[in-house]
């Protein structure tokens, strides 16, 4: 999913802070059974679904929506309110969750019989193979994840680009490279990977690995009307106005145990003002009692919603997929004691208050988030890891001691990169003040938000500390720790390259026993915090409200989204 620099909760911090007692965790209905029929309304301020094209879809909410209604993937997550259960894989378009061989370098899936496209033609192994190939056409199939390019065993050029340009431009020789890496024998689909991956069956939950039929592919325009193989199909789609899904009469429930498909119609209404969406769902009148909104409650209404018991069964207050943190550049701050001093000195309570208070999230103790499931365990960062307890307001004395113990002065000034927004300006001012108490001089480096990551991911331009947000691509810490803290990761703002750590990460990635792997990630999470590779500030939270007729609403851990497949209206 996308990295994030935005902080949504800028208003109402003081108000919501007074509501500590009123705010519990998720309520919602959470029902596992629903009622057939009716129309589910989805209200959003967005002007369209960013991408319905499965190979281009790469945001949690959209992935959950599309996989719930339109496109089935080889494997999928369990629909459950419990994060650990939800992170467990189940078979979807495949008959099982995949079979690894060759030490994890080869993965085979068997495509389920009886699954059909909306026009009645069967979904075949070749359709999946073709769909995956579209990712390689990176000049047309944009914005999506590029795991197919990085993981499949297809030669790369000197500049790192794939020798296969995708199905639209490939000549026979280039196509042969792809055909060797992804093979179909009847309904058996085999992926040959460049290096072992123990959790490739999690990777294929992404719709980038979903089928697309070659004769229906319209390239750039496929976004506008995807061919469905799920329980619903697109009846009409007018961007900036609405998307209407109706039942797909070619979908056979006997082939699909994951999607009860309760409503008759799904209507996604775009371009609505955020304030009005919340007001409408609060008022709960007419069709709005059948409505949900993926946008969350506007900050100005949080107090009203969370202090009034009448909303208790309709509101959600759960972790979103993102962890917010400041990556500490180990090249600029090489001494671990200095990095630990930064962690000890920061006033995390004030940072959270600036971000929106209790509704902005829980205090984080690492970069692996509890809603990832089994890979999370408390790191003890603020209790023991730094040598003493660190309250949420910071411990400047401990920070001073750590700097003194380091045997060298702190490399002042500490340049802190951040995307310039009014909220982030305040957060940096807080950091300046709290770190100053420990003798650390922060030099703020505000950057234009649109180009933020282009700067901080360039080692030549990055400062000593950089603000960031991260959400895992699938429910495995293999999409967190290696990405953030190893040279092979795509988001190593810490510029960390420790041989022992890298080796342990590689070993964990290759583990096929999920329980053992989870323990390995938990240990590595502790090590990453011991090494103070980042200052984790909060596990982001999101608050949502749904109409009184909506049943089955909860926050689905894998995507931090509604569990679209199970929603129903009374």
């Amino acid at each position: 999913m996308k990295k994030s620099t935005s902080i949504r909760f800028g208003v109402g911090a003081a108000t919501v802070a007074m509501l500590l007692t009123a705010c519990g965790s998720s309520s919602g209905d959470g029902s596992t059974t629903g009622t057939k029929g009716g129309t589910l309304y989805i209200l959003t301020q967005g002007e369209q679904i960013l991408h319905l094209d499965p190979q281009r879809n790469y945001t949690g909410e959209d992935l959950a929506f599309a996989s719930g209604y339109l496109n089935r993937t080889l494997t999928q997550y369990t629909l459950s309110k419990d994060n650990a259960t939800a992170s467990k894989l189940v078979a979807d378009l495949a008959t099982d969750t995949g079979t690894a061989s060759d030490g994890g370098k080869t993965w085979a899936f068997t495509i389920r019989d009886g699954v059909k496209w909306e026009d009645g033609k069967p979904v075949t192994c070749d359709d999946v193979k073709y769909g995956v190939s579209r990712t390689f056409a990176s000049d047309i199939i944009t914005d999506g994840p590029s795991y197919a390019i990085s993981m499949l065993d297809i030669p790369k050029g000197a500049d790192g680009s794939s020798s296969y340009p995708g199905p639209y431009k490939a000549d026979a020789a280039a196509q042969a490279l792809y055909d060797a890496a992804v093979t179909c024998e009847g309904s058996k689909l085999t992926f040959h990977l460049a290096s072992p991956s123990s959790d490739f069956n999690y990777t294929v939950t992404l719709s980038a690995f979903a089928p697309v039929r070659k004769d229906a592919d319209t390239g750039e325009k496929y976004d506008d009307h995807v061919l469905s193989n799920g329980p619903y199909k697109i009846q009409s789609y007018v961007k900036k106005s609405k998307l209407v899904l109706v039942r797909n009469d070619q979908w056979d429930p006997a082939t699909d145990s994951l999607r009860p498909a309760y409503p008759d119609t799904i209507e996604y209404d775009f371009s609505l003002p955020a304030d009005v969406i919340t007001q409408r769902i609060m008022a709960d009148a007419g069709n709005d009692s059948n409505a949900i909104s993926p946008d969350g409650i506007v900050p100005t209404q949080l107090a009203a919603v969370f202090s009034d018991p009448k909303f208790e069964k309709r509101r959600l207050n759960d972790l979103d997929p993102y962890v917010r943190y400041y990556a500490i550049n180990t090249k600029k701050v090489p001494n671990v004691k200095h990095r630990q001093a930064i962690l000890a000195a920061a006033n995390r309570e004030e940072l959270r208050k600036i971000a929106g208070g209790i509704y902005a999230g829980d205090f984080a103790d690492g970069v692996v988030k509890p809603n990832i499931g089994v890979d999370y365990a408390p790191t003890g960062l603020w209790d023991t890891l730094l040598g003493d307890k660190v309250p949420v307001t910071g411990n400047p004395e401990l920070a001073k001691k750590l700097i003194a113990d380091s045997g060298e002065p702190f490399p002042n000034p500490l340049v802190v990169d951040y995307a310039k927004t009014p909220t982030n300006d305040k957060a940096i001012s807080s950091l300046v003040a709290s770190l100053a108490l420990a003798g650390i001089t922060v030099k703020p480096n505000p950057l234009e938000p649109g180009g933020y990551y282009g700067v901080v991911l360039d080692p030549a331009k990055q400062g000593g500390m950089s603000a960031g947000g991260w959400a895992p691509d699938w429910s495995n810490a293999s999409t967190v720790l290696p990405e953030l803290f190893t040279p092979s990761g795509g988001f190593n703002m810490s510029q960390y390259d420790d041989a022992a750590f890298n080796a342990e990460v590689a070993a964990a990635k290759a583990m096929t026993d999920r329980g053992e792997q989870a323990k390995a990630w938990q240990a590595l999470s502790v090590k990453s915090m011991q090494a103070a590779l980042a200052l984790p500030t909060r596990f982001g939270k999101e608050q949502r409200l749904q109409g009184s007729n909506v049943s089955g609403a909860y926050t689905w851990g894998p995507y931090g989204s509604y569990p679209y497949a199970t929603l129903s209206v009374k």
Partner: protein
Amino acid sequence: MFPYIIRRLGLMVVMLTLLSIVTFLLFNAVPTDPAMLTCGKSCTPELVAANRIRLGLDQPLYVQYIDWIKAIFVGRTYGSGTQTFPCNAPCLGYSFRNGEEVTVMIKAALPITIYLALGAFVLWMVFGILSGIYAAKHHTEWQDRVIMGVALVGYSLPVFFIGLVLLIFVVVRLHLLPYPDYVAPQTNPVQFLQTMILPWISLAILYAAYYTRLTRSQMLETLSEDYIRTARAKGLPESVVVRKHGFRAGLTPIVTSAGLDLAGLLGGAVITEYIFSLPGLGRLSIGAVTEYDLPTITATVLVAATFVIVANLIVDMLYAAIDPRVRLS
């Protein structure tokens, strides 16, 4: 008058060309790289470079501009390999952010903005002018003070406040109207009116307040002229004095303001469109700016500018019709 109109139209083409050049230059002056914005999380320098080519941003600015102008007259082809698609003339470009031809987007958005602007225009002109005349006729009396007080309140309230209050009370709380859901008038006239009435009122309140004050002040000025006294002395009925001699003489500044205000709205009533979920030109242009969508920005700027320039021309021609002393040459 004909040569005058031809000359003004020629000037309009020059101004629009200059404007499109300036828009191109301004867009390229921003520090954000649009190619980077189209790159997902797994962004690599190769992918950014590929996106730059796909967006045409690898070409020199003048080449990009010439390609864009050329496409307006002859169209162009987008995509690559086996997946190409045409953008037929007049092709104003392709929005990669929205996945749609800009011409198609403008064709969809423009009627909505026109309906919004024209409906509000009629309301505010009728109420603004009538109440302004009435207030002037009752100058210093309580009717004048009431109308001016109401106008001051209406003029002071920002349009987003008026819009939100109307929406929340009339629709969300009192359910007097269904939630705005735009359809074309020929598809469902009732739903069209139900959707448009509140946006029209929101805009009309703001503008009518201004036109009330403007009309009143113009009327007060002309009604105190010597020729008005002469007309009254001649025994002309008061209604004729006010309508024929007073109002017509004070009409010129009202027409100027009305023409420019209407043209401004036709470029997109951003806030009103946003509040009432009307996918008009205003929303389109704001979305384009926030997403660094150059083809859409350029096209919407040009459409808005065309309205202003044409409105100026119409206003100038109306001067001649209203005031015989004005001659266009």
